[in-house]
């Protein structure tokens, strides 16, 4: 029977503050949507990093007669130089165990022929023009700098190629975008927080007579807070659910329907990641409602 009073209270509260409740719902909706998108973008970047970094290895191209690299002297790399280079690579702490693979001219040529099998260029190139190379896998793909600088410039080394040199700026940019999105989402969430606490304050002010009498006759603090709490939680839940819906729609149309079709080679965020993000969003939404409500109403319950 207490529930009855509480629910009728809730109804009255919602009606009285309808426009403010709607404003709170919309703010939570927008801020949580952005927050969720930022979470998903983060997952996406991690996925892409994993994808790329797994495949990435350092390629150390060795000198041919024609190559003009720093460690070349117009001559073919010697066996001695190759041994020395391999030794340097293998003794590096960043090299994965059994991570060194030497590619001979013949293997390079086979690979070349496979890649360009339909192109007339194959007939103009001979095996002798191919470049020998070492392919190195790293223990931690993030740590490539040391090895690259250790090997570059060794006699017999033409060029050291590391794809990450090109990918890292890309990931940095993506990281920056993520941080930007998170900051924007954070600001919006703070705005939502303040809006909720303002709304609660006004609602508490509107009910100050009742609250005063409740305190006087000994209603428990929780009982007094409950209608505010329910109101805030309800608004936050509606906002959070709308945001979750928005995120699903976004993932469905942008990722599942478009991106996944167009860029099949990449792994894309899917249902699992979206679900994870929505759970976090709902939790954040609830915190957003409960914390300011407790803090704001506590002031009215003091004394």
């Amino acid at each position, binding site marked *: 029977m207490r529930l009855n009073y509480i629910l009728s209270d809730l109804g009255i509260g919602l009606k009285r503050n309808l426009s403010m409740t709607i404003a709170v719902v919309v703010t939570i909706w927008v801020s949580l949507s952005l927050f969720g998108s930022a979470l998903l973008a983060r997952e996406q970047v991690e996925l892409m990093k994993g994808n790329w970094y797994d495949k990435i290895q350092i390629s150390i191209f060795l000198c041919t007669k024609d190559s003009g690299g720093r460690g070349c002297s117009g001559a073919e790399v010697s066996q001695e130089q190759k041994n020395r280079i391999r030794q340097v690579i293998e003794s590096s702490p960043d090299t994965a165990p059994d991570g060194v693979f030497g590619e001979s001219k013949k293997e390079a040529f086979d690979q070349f022929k496979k890649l360009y099998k339909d192109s007339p260029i194959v007939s103009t190139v001979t095996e002798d023009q191919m470049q020998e190379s070492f392919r190195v896998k790293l223990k931690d793909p993030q740590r490539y700098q040391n090895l690259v600088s250790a090997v570059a410039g060794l006699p017999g080394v033409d060029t050291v190629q590391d794809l990450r040199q090109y990918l890292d700026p890309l990931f940095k940019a993506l990281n920056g975008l993520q941080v930007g999105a998170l900051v924007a989402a954070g600001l919006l969430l703070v705005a939502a927080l303040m809006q909720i606490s303002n709304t609660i304050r006004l609602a508490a002010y509107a009910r100050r007579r009742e609250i005063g*009498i409740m305190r006087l006759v000994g209603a428990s603090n929780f009982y007094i807070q409950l209608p505010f709490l329910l109101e805030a939680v309800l608004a936050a839940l509606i906002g959070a659910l709308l945001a979750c819906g928005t995120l699903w729609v976004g993932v469905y149309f942008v990722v599942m329907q478009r991106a996944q079709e167009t860029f099949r080679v990449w792994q894309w965020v899917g249902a699992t990641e979206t679900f994870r993000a929505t759970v976090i969003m709902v939790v954040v939404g609830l915190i957003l409602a409960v914390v300011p409500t407790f803090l704001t109403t506590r002031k009215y319950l003091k004394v």
Partner: protein
Amino acid sequence: MIRFENVSKTFEGQSKAALLNVNVEIEKGEFVFLVGTSGSGKSTFLRLVLREHRTSKGHIMVAGKDLNRLASWRIPQMRRQIGTVFQDFRLLPNKTVAENVAFALQVIGKPRAHIRKTVPEVLELVGLDGKEDRLPDELSGGEQQRVAIARAFVNRPMILIADEPTGNLDPGTSVGIMKLLDRINRTGTTVVMATHDVSIVDQMRKRVIELENGHVVRDESRGVYGYQH
């Protein structure tokens, strides 16, 4: 029932104490008038009993419990045993008489059956039967104060605190209210009432505690108001 032990109260940011070294003992079932000029500390005395403020010094025991040692989450429980009436009635304007009284029971979680039974009883006790469905502004001041008293008494408190309950009422109506408070007192409820009403105090001949600048300057059983203002 209520014991002040060397109680002083100085409000924050004030140099002068609102109450100073007050020692008072009020027994169960007593009827006590609290008199004194404006600002002498009567309301402060009553609010300390309600634990709306903490004492600056000294202890207040209510029903054997030291209010300073009362955890703040227990205060609501404690207040359920104290009924309170004010000069300005403090009724909810959008609730009927019966709803105003029932509100006090609803918000402390009393069962509906209990509320349905108790509210008419107490409304009859205060002489408001037949006016259950009126709104407060459809009542006279005296009637509104009866609603407030009904609300204060409906949970059968051990103590009834009244801060100038007749302050807004004419003498005739005031007498009616005093009769009601006297009746409530005779059910065993301890009544503490702050007032400026000379004739009421002189007529009732109850215990009178006079405050002056926060001191107790007089405490006599069957006293009178004592001075003209």
